[in-house]
């Protein structure tokens, strides 16, 4: 018996379905990679921020106190090719009732970085701003 092959129409339909599915998968993969990249960048930003906070906490109290109410001290860290801009702002901890003499300082370390996104097809690159904040406390007698 002579078996009948696929018709051109069937093949075209199959290719169409596969193309749709592939596009969906590729899109999902790209999105997934983007999510992972963003997650990785967040982790690195948290590491950078933690490291910078620890560095500041190791400095004399007076040096940190001098930043209180100021725009902030900015430093740039480049990690795995990405630039992280760290900005430390310092203010007396609130509420004042829990902060006798306003000597306890709230340190806020903002870590900002840019994320590049490639739009498939046209190859257009766009950037998206990201940031992360870490807070800690510094006291006059030294800081943990």
């Amino acid at each position, binding site marked *: *018996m002579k078996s*009948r092959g*696929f018709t051109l129409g*069937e093949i075209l339909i199959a290719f169409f*379905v*596969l193309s749709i*599915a592939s596009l*969906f*998968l590729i899109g*999902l*993969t790209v*999105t*997934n990679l983007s*999510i*992972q990249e*963003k*997650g*990785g960048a*967040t*982790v690195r*930003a*948290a*590491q950078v*921020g*933690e490291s910078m*906070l620890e560095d500041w906490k*190791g400095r*004399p*109290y*007076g040096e940190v106190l001098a930043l209180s109410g100021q725009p902030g001290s900015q430093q740039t860290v480049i990690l795995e090719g990405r630039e992280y801009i760290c900005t430390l702002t310092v203010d007396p*901890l609130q509420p004042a009732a*829990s*902060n*006798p*003499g306003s*000597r*306890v300082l*709230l*340190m*806020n370390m903002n870590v900002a970085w840019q994320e590049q996104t490639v739009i498939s097809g046209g190859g257009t690159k766009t950037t998206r701003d990201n940031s*992360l*904040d*870490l*807070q*800690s*406390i*510094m*006291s*006059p*007698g*030294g*800081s*943990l």
Partner: protein
Amino acid sequence: MKRRSNWGGILLAALALSIIILMLVGILLQRGRTGLFQSSHYRDSVRALQAARGGVNHVMTLLEENAAYSSDLSIALEDAEYSITFDPGNPNFSVNNLSSASPSTQTNMFGEEVPPRSADIVVTARSGRVERRVHVILSNGFSAFRSASAVGRVILTGDVKVDGIKSLTPPPGQTEPAPAPGGVLSKFESTNASEPSIEWIESGGTFELSELSRLEASAPSGGAAFSSNLESLFPDRAIEDGASDVIPDIDVDAYVAGGMASPPLAGGSTLAGYVYVGDSRSRSGNVTVNGTLSLTEGTLYVDGDLTVNGNIEGTGSVFVSGDINVVGGNTLVMTDRPAGVALLAGGDVSLQGINAAGALQNLASLYGFEPATDRLFSLLTGYQGSVGFSWVALGKHDGPWVPDPPASAPPPDNLRPLGPAPIEEWVNPIAGPNGGHALAFSNAATTRVVLSLKETYPAYTSDPQALKVVKALEDLQYFFRSNKHYVKHDGTSLINQAGTRFFDLEDDYQLTEGGVPIAPNEFTPNALDLLPPMDLLVTDDSSTMLDEDWDDRGAPDYLRTHDAIFALLGNNADLQNRRRDAFFEANNPLDANWLGDSYFQGMVYARGDVSAETNFRVVGALISLGNISLSNGSWLTLNEEYSDLVGQVLPIGLVFYEEL
């Protein structure tokens, strides 16, 4: 024949393909979700940990403000929150025992008692769905506790020894204190290789670093952390970039300002003899103590400089806005009585030891005496010719002293002036058993001798040799007071310099321990340590004294004779001179081996520099926001028990940390 349809196979293939695609989609979605969760979890974990550690810093400040602080605390930050509770009903509760000198009655969350002057704190922090808990023990004192810690450089010259002990009191059954890590810390970031953070200038000396001790320095910034000789000597114990601990910045001026409301310290700007401080005292202006500054749980605030020509002893704290200068120091380390003083200076601290043996040797050389055989008295007699004081003046008597009294002179008035002027005051105002006023090197009598010398020759402070004589006498006084060498009567055991018994020979010649007379046969005093009663030692019955040995005279065992005394009394000088010689000779035959290093027991904190020289041994710790320099024989023994030395005065430090 009817043609079979392939649509079923196609459908199955399509279904299989769809399932595979859906699985891939699921895997990708799951991976993305997991990655996103992990990164956000990590971020929240960091936030929570920073908040928890920040909570520790926060509560440290609250406890410094109020050592009895025990209110619950809950603080919300932008992306996290932390809380501390002292409610034992909460599973993560804290216990504040900072104000207590004994372990807490309330156990901590683990059922353990909280040590004295400590706070057991648990901080719970949350960020997102992450919770972190930090458990710390805070204590009054320093977290960075080493033999010497400096923000600046540490420069050591000549003989150096660095070690540590847990306590001056040896463990049960042991004769030596248990060792502990000592060490030297410098946070100086050297920028020049010729100025290392920690430097040892050998000068023919040796450097001993106990096995547990380390040398730690900040990472250099183009310079060197250690001098090359230290790196060669201690390749494994010279640790670069190991100086992570924070040296606390204590506002000494603020403490002094706060303490000036205390009652004033009595007396003028120059104080002589024993200056006792048993509570809080203050002084505006410079203070000089020629003698002993003795603290009994006392606190002295000086808004100026403090100079002590003698020693600082006891327990307590001294806050000085300016500089602290200690010339002399303790002769011996006290082991069995509360001892440990915190010196805190807004300026510099200088500790100058005296090499008493060397001083006497120098005197001997100066006047051509032989230290092994000549007497201190002779030395002083030779010395008086150049400095001008007289032995008569030592007794505060008027009138000239007649060296050869008539045989009918009333006994046993040694040093009594026999000239025409009336006697104004006895050196020893307490009458002895025979009604006389004999001299002995009892505590009070020696003090009087020293003070008389100082009063008679005020310029002694600017005369190095006279100063040394005074120091030698003061050392002698301290030595006698401490009485470190004993052989038990049965001869089986020796209580050496680490011994734990202290005796005083009272003015009435009673031998006492803590004010209680000791049994006469309990100890046999080793040669030259204890005098027998002076009425037995120096008597007007010269024939008896000269002919018989002490034992032959039927004296009790504890008054066994000493060859030195017998030899002294066997000379052919007149009785008056023999008496006069006796009380010096019997105590100090110029065998000055027991006069040695100068000691300070406690902690020294200076916002400026700290220097110690001339065989100065610190049992405790040196802490400086400036440089530390030690020269001419230094021995730094960290004593861990001094970490709690000043109770609630010093900043609260972290002594234990764990993440739960």
